[in-house]
């Protein structure tokens, strides 16, 4: 099985307060920010690894996992981290964030899919910076492939996947045929949420994404990392979505201490007007 995982780096969500927006609101100043892989994309990579192995032998890859990101040269460290975790090779499509929108990324991925011919394209349900939640859906449309979004569980079958999606009041299970696009949600990295045909159903993964052993980190440098330009993949690199203005959320006001429940109720009623 061959899986293409789309991976984006985002400004460290734990340090979101470092994001600066100039007074004219024209852009987001990314200088000095620390970057991390988008957590949902890390879950997608974990899912891809689980689908291409026997859970008891995580060092043996059965199939191929390719990670791709769209970003400037320093996003290669994000790709290397993915290679260290177990991906086989990486592709970086050279572009700056402000040259990209969801549709453009989906179009770029479409060309890559034509070149690589994966059985599955996996990615996070959304990136936690822009929260657009578009790329997976747009890609499935462009490819005319079946799609499962917000996957919480995946079971590999002979010719496709059974995907569990958490919806209000229950789990929706759907069966999709290869090739397919799947976007994953938080619960996909629970101990028994993903099973390849090689992994015994009694096997339990560690909660969360795996961490890379140190030798794999050192060897990741020897794994292939190709670079492509956006123009190689997409004819029209114009943006369809333009951001008009950015605005920082209002600073949080200092809290007040209330003496007793009566005062609290009074304030909620008369000041906050929520009761």
């Amino acid at each position: 099985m061959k899986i293409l995982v789309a991976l984006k780096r985002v400004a460290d969500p734990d340090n979101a307060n470092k994001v600066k927006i100039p007074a004219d609101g024209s852009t987001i100043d990314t200088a000095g920010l620390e970057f991390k892989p988008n957590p949902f994309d890390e879950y997608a990579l974990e899912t891809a690894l689980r689908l291409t192995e026997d859970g008891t032998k995580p060092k043996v890859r059965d199939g191929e996992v390719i990670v791709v990101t769209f970003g400037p040269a320093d996003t290669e460290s994000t790709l290397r981290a993915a290679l260290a975790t177990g991906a086989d090779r990486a592709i970086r499509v050279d572009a700056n964030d402000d040259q990209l929108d969801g549709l453009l990324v989906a179009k770029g991925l479409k060309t890559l899919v034509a070149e690589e011919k994966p059985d599955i394209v996996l990615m996070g349900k959304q990136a936690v910076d822009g929260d657009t939640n578009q790329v997976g859906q747009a890609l499935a449309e462009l490819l005319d492939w079946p799609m499962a979004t917000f996957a919480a569980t995946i079971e590999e079958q002979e010719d496709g996947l059974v995907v569990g999606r958490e919806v209000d009041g229950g789990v929706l299970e759907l069966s999709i045929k290869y090739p397919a696009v799947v976007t994953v949600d938080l619960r996909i990295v629970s101990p028994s949420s993903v099973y390849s045909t090689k992994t015994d159903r009694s096997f339990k993964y560690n909660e969360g994404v795996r961490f890379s052993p140190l030798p794999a980190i050192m060897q990741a440098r020897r794994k292939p990392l190709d670079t492509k330009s956006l123009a190689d993949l997409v004819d029209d690199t114009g943006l369809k979505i333009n951001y008009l203005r950015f605005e920082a959320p209002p600073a949080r006001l200092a809290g007040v201490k209330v003496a007793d429940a009566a005062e609290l109720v009074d304030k909620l009623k008369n000041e906050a007007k929520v009761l």
Partner: protein
Amino acid sequence: MSEQRMGDQSFMKGVFHGDLAEDLIFPFPQVAKEEGENLSMILDSVSRFLDEKVDSAAIDREHSIPESVIEEAKALGLFGLQIPMDHGGIGLSTTAYSRIMQQVGGHDASLAVTLGAHQSIGLKALLLFGTDEQKERFFPTLATGEKVAAFALTEPSAGSDAAGIKTHAKLSEDGTYWVLNGSKIWITNGAIADVFTVFARTSDFEEGTKPRLTAFIVERGEGLTTGSNEAKLGIRGSSTTEVFFDDVRVPAENVIGEVGRGFKVAMGVLNSGRLGLAAGCVGVNKTLIKMALDRVGERRAFGKYLGEFGLIKDKIAGMLARTYALESMTYLTTGLLDAGVPDYSLESAICKVYGSETAWWVVNETLQIAAGTGYMEEYPYERILRDSRINLIFEGTNEILRCFIALSGLAGPGRELSEVSRAMREPIKGFGLLVDYAVKFARNRIAPGRLTRAHPVLSRETVLIEEYTAHLAGHVGNLLRKHGRDIALMQFAQRRVADVAIDLFALSACVSRTTATIESRGEEAAREEIDYTRIFAVEARRRLECNVVGFEANDDEVRKGAAVRSYELGSYPFDIMG
């Protein structure tokens, strides 16, 4: 790797001559880009492992690190950090190794000590002095942790003084193996180790004479037994045992280095091992600072947060500045080592002494800030306090290391002076030498060492270094002229010399690092670094003044007298009951 750094001079040894070999410490060493990238991925993995798997309270309570945690640490690669890649290790530099030990030390001291005993000292003799054949034979299994290493020097009769070693090795008639007999105490990893670096005498025991020591690699096997784990104050999850050798046969090819040169091997191992310990102390300090900051922002008294009180701010500022000094000196030294500077023995001893004492101070102050809560077993403060105590004792006690810092610093000028005095006895033949010395002395007096590469913003701190370097060199000269070799017995003076040296190295490291930050990011962005350097410099100035004055004016003799008289009495002499 800059050319100038390759000389065989040590920065601190230069300081004893009044020289400031600034090219050794400027620019402050940076982690190379590729290793930095690997290192941040490694730290990410290591932190996740520590956070998810290592429960320090449980380790302390159970007096052991769970087997599964050790296994996972091995699988992660934590047992082969500095073993070269072609021997199955991760092949990291000393800087990267130390940064990882910082991470582990900041999370769990028992695990840090276990990992440190294995690779900071246990297998270090092989790394530094081993032959290719020995490395080939031992490294692959040590790198994966399939085999664990230990360092066995201490004996009941030989703690600080390795000359007291009684364990002896006798070469077989045919010269193919040695027979080892004796015992060691307090050996970290004793219960879990398979490979021991053992120091044994290969000369007959004679009271008062220096033995010839030899270092051996000894595998667990027939004749080698270990005692049960000692119950101890802290680092309770680490194993500490006796090791017994009863006619243990050690193949001749297991000698590390040369026969009779074991002392050199032990010193080499400890010189580099001490840096891992210092880095662990950086980690402990960072953890404690975080705990203290959480506490002072939460706990209220007299209608205020603790953090609002002046005495608390004073403590926090001290913690920040001293930790900055420790971090700077530690990574300056690992950088020197990685750049190939061969002699870093003084610098690493300083890092060990300063690191262990700073961590001890920071843990004490953090516990004080937490007060009653700090004293309760339910909270981590008291455990970290107990765990931190060992650092002042092992890998050379801080007393021994102060003497070492002073005496090996003095040895350079001492050698020069003895040549000078010889020259004075043979005036004609020694004329050239005398002139050289006079010139050097004059140069030091007129133009003492300068730090021209320090940023001008730090001029006050730079002048302090220059001034006290000149003072140190001057007093060293006086002491040597006045006392000659007897200085070796004068520990009060040695303590002052060592403490001046420690402050000078700490200050130099801060100035170098802060200069690098100012140069790369500008003065505004280096505000914090500049302030920490200043705070540290003010603290250091007080000590420097006091120590330098003490060379001339002190109550050393009174103190010695009081101590010696009490030895005769055997107790405190007074009671108000009359």
